């Protein structure tokens, strides 16, 4: 997949901030972001975090506040309106033209570019074949399912061979099964085209599986930029840790090579400080062991058997219950004592 990565257009945002409402609402704090050609970058965060504003600045639907600049490759496109940027855009609401059929929708960008009819027919034909939409070609939009609509919208966006592809929550309006299926299709498509893509979502699963890099945002600010692995294993703030996957938090006091917490101790081999800390660890990085030798002890509050694993809610370790996931076949009963230890390599310690 790296072979196709070098012909996309790089995107660069320089000090792009955005204020709405005559200076009253700061939607985006000054942002610098470099996206290499062919890379897929996911903007991830809760609603109102500034991810959509960032995408709209890249698209040319919003202008950054004075001082902000946007580059596509070496071209400064800051003042260029969206219709002159040669981008492809996919919307949450599909935004297909209801007065045109599938084929006319896909052909629209080519028609606007005044391409000869023969060439339009050839390219649309290719696209219909590639997206397996042969039988849908002459359907009206209201005769399509949500998944089919979003595939048409994707085809319409990429048939014009845009410099960058921008996707604004493209899967949010779909049901869970379709969402997963289309996610795979989008992933394959992006790899095959080698196009630079910016993808906005609030769904961490989508972000992890599609992004070469993820930009986690909150309150108009970037919290962390990194590969999905970085973000998951090395979150640099509580917000990122909580937003990506589920995570447990224990308050404790560091001393020597371990941290004292309410239910026992957690090894912390790299410790260089002492004092109040907060320990974060993921439910799957916990090993259950015999209560007599366990470093941590608690009581099972509830257990949820989920087939491939069991999810345990464990109390007695401070004010917040923790979550443990185990793949063993033991049945756990509410109220029973449980002993466990945390994998020392997987803990994240935030000093207070």
């Amino acid at each position, binding site marked *: 997949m790296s072979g196709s990565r070098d012909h996309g257009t790089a995107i660069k945002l320089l000090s792009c901030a955005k204020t709405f409402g005559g200076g009253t609402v700061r939607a985006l704090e000054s942002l610098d972001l470099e996206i290499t050609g062919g890379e897929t970058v996911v903007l991830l965060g809760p609603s109102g975090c500034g991810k959509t504003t960032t995408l709209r600045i890249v*698209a040319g*639907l919003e202008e950054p506040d004075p001082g902000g600049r946007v580059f596509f490759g070496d071209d400064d496109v800051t003042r260029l*309106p*969206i*219709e*002159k940027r*040669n*981008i*492809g*855009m996919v*919307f*949450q*609401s599909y*935004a*297909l*033209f*209801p*007065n045109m059929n599938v084929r006319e929708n896909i052909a*629209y*960008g080519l028609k*606007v*570019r005044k391409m000869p009819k023969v060439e339009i027919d050839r390219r649309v034909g290719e696209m219909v074949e590639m997206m397996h939409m042969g039988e849908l070609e002459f359907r009206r939009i209201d005769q399509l399912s949500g998944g089919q609509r979003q595939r048409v*919208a994707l085809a*319409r*966006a990429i048939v*014009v061979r845009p410099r960058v592809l*921008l996707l604004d929550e493209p899967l949010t309006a779909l049901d869970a099964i379709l969402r997963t299926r289309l996610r795979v299709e989008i992933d394959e498509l992006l790899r095959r085209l080698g196009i630079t893509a910016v993808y906005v979502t609030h769904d961490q699963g989508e972000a992890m599986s599609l992004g070469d890099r993820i930009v986690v945002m909150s309150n108009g600010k970037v919290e962390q930029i990194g590969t999905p692995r970085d973000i998951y294993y090395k979150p640099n703030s509580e917000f990122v840790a909580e937003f990506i996957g589920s995570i447990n938090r224990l308050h404790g006091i560091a001393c020597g090579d371990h941290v004292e917490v309410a239910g026992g101790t957690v090894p912390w081999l790299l410790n260089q400080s002492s004092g109040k800390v907060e320990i974060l660890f993921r439910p799957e990085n916990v090993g259950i062991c015999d209560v007599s030798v366990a470093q941590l002890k608690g009581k099972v509050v509830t257990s949820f058997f989920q087939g491939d694993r069991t999810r345990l809610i464990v109390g007695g370790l401070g004010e917040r219950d923790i979550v443990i996931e185990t793949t063993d076949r033991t049945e756990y009963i509410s109220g029973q004592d449980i002993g466990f230890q945390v994998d020392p390599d997987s803990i994240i310690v935030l000093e207070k």
Partner: protein
Amino acid sequence: MNRHEYRNLVILVLPTAIVCIAFFILPMAKLVMIGGSGERGLVAYLDILTKPRHFESLIATLLLSILVTVTALAVATISGLFLERNRFRGRGLLISMLTFPLAFPGVVIGFMVIMLGGRQGLVSEISKAVTGDKIVFAYSIVGLFVGYMYFSIPRVILTIMAAAEKLDPALEEAARSLGAPQWRVVLDVILPALKPGLIASGAICFATSMGAFGTAFTLATNIDVLPMTIYTEFTLNANIVGAATLSIVLGIITWTALYIARSLSGSNAVAAG
């Protein structure tokens, strides 16, 4: 359906049926009969095409109504879109002022046109002061046009604003992202989305202009629009047959326009307009 349900249905439909028969079917039938009751029977309906005064009146009314409809659609679409998309101080007041004409009967609108473009009107006073010539347009086709525009525009603006509100902004952004300049966005996205509303409110405009009487009567113009001709035939010439035939023709034209609009824009569009 069993007997019991059938009986209930009849009882429920009865009021509508009585009103419909008493005020619609019977008078219409009577009118058709009167129209055909002259010495020459139903041939009287052809008089509309052969009598120059009737024919001219029909054509003038048609042309005026079409002109008013087209102009009102153009003006109101632009203003309706503007009002829907821009938020500014006094917007609410402006919108309620624009819908004001709906509150006036034709007589008052005619009166206002006279105050604007009559012999002692505002325009004539100003033009006299500036150029020495009095510009008077109230009693010509221009006066009628102004009056009809006045009550046509609000009907369209309200419909357009309602339709524009439902328009997904992402549609326009999608068209622009594909390289469409503003005029293409209007042509390919906005107008198609407004089409049902335009057809519906256009039909209402046309029908209202065809049948408008009060304004024309107040202005006492030198152009006889159809409702005026009907009035003259009926009251002054006592030509009951002529008045009846003209009424039926006027009704058919208006009804046809509404019917076409209904079938073009979906069944509930006219009701919504």
